[in-house]
């Protein structure tokens, strides 16, 4: 069995923080959850994170802000954005900035799997 890849989830919504890691574990990933971008940045998991599932509308530092901050710090973590607010313009912009996928909540397991596969192919 391959070593579980670490997928970190950053979302201020409790139900996402509870449900998504459970599914990711079922899919064979190791997970860490964070309620804010700041929490993630100060955690010990930034270096180990192989894929970041990141909410866009976060209190304080937003998801896109975190994306920029990670690029600035030289972390090239594949990012799957998730959002409750579908916006085509935002989607275009984030994908052009290097995001792997942009998923609108609620998203299916199939969409999540495809995004995770894409994230694994990065680099």
């Amino acid at each position: 069995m391959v070593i579980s890849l670490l997928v970190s989830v950053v979302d201020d919504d409790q139900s996402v923080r509870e449900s998504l890691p459970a599914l990711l574990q079922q899919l064979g990933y190791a997970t860490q959850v964070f309620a804010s971008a700041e929490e993630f940045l100060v955690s010990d998991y930034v270096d180990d994170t192989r894929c970041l599932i990141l909410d866009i509308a976060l209190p304080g530092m937003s998801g896109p802000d975190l994306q920029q901050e990670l690029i600035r710090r030289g972390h090239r973590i594949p990012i799957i954005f998730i959002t409750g607010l579908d916006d085509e313009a935002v989607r275009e912009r984030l994908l052009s900035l290097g995001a792997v996928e942009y998923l609108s909540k609620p998203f299916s397991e199939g969409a999540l799997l495809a995004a995770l596969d894409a994230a694994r192919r990065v680099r």
Partner: protein
Amino acid sequence: MTLTEEIGAHSHDLCTSNPDTRCAQRWSGFCIPYIGATIGDLFQKRHPLRVVLDALCGLFDAALEGHCSSVVLLDPTQARVRYAVGPNLPSSYNEQLTGNPVRVVGAPHIAYGLRLSWSSPILSLTGELLGVFAVFLREGSDPVPIPPTLLPQFAHIASVAIERGRSVEKSGRSEAILRKTQYLSSTGSFSWRPATDEMEGSEELYRIFELDSSLRLTLELMCSRVHPEDVPLFREKISRARNGSDFEFEHRLRMPDHSVKYVRSTVQATRDEDDQLDYIGVIQDVTPRSLSEEALDKARAELARVARVSSLGALTASIAHEVNQPLSGTVTNCSTCLHMLAADPPDLEGARETARLAIRDAQRAADVIRRVRALFGRRNEPTESVDLNEATQEVIALLLTELQRAGADLRMELAEDLPLVRGDRVQLQQVILNLLLNACEAMKDVQDRPRRLVIGTERGEGGGIRLRVRDTGLGFEPQDLKRLFQAFYTTKTGGMGIGLSVSRSIIERHHGRLWGELNDGPGATFSFSIPCEPAQCAAKDHRWSSVYSSRS
């Protein structure tokens, strides 16, 4: 003086002042009084001025063999030829002059083989140049002597005719304008002499009353169209009018098809030369206005609803977000659940727990929908006991995303043990929503300081409860304070500006008041206070307790 008399007087001058007896004989046979009578008759028969002038030239020509006369009429600016007439001149000659600027007319008669014998300006009584009376000699004809004063006299007859024609035209025009004005303003007029009950009504009056125009107007006839319920009022006004008092009142008419019209009657007394009362009345059909006032009321109500709905529009994204979060949890949990059931061996306990989480999340989504419906539904909730803190928190739950988007740093300072208030929960929430959205809007362009938004509740003076929303936005100009609460007034470029006026009326319906004030620092604070439920007012003193940030 009638036209005939006037022309007759001149013809008398013409005959008596003529020193040349040979001419006098000739011209007395010409019978100038006959001209006056003929011209007067033409006017009587309402012939247009052009025909009258043409006839005048014809009469002149009949007496002078080999000559033909012409009247060139100028337009009121005196710069252009209005038209030229002369029955014995070639019609192309007359047409050639029509409409031309006077300066370029030149001497076109030469081309027609005519020689100008005499001409005289036609002047009005005030000396205004109206036109020219000219007599031409045909080629090959011999000149005929005419008395030297004849031409000016004829020109004078023409001038009287022209002035008369103009005044007829003018009064015809003003009559037409009056008729049109009455029609456009749905205003009919009538005159009434109480002494004899003689009446006359305008075309529009007949139209409004839907009366056959051949009927003679009488008070009784008018009364027959007055709505039966308004007949006593109508009769009373009429009987008072007989004593010389003016009146103005609104009443209804009922048409034969039972449709109802709303009219405003204004009647004013005047006195004629014999000091007899003479009334001039106008009756305006205000039905469309009355109906539109009704429509306006409806529109206002609709607008108030639209204002709510447009807040909803602004919040749609926020609501979608609020609903999608728990839905996302539900979908994810169900996927997890399936995995757990498909495992070998199935993780039944895990599946059960995950299914519960899915149910909880679905319930949360349903809760959001219920809150939205409560907030924006059209139903009128009956009065109930309302916990303002709870109502506030519900609004904030819906607004969180919007507040974040606006970059507002929200602090809630809700007093604990707040007495309940009596009122319409949904309406009060709309007010809170309006105040919060206004605050966000006011801070939209603030860049140099934190966009701090504080919503607080506390016990106010007089046993009421006060809710305040304080922002660090742009505030407002003190002189605008009053206007802020008027419908349609807004300092925003977007938005309908109805929020504060509707909010105030909601609070006033709750026997409270809503006001705004500028902060000591930047921004403004809008507050309302409403009385609490009587049984609650004696409750213990409040303490500040739940002071927390939305960002926790």
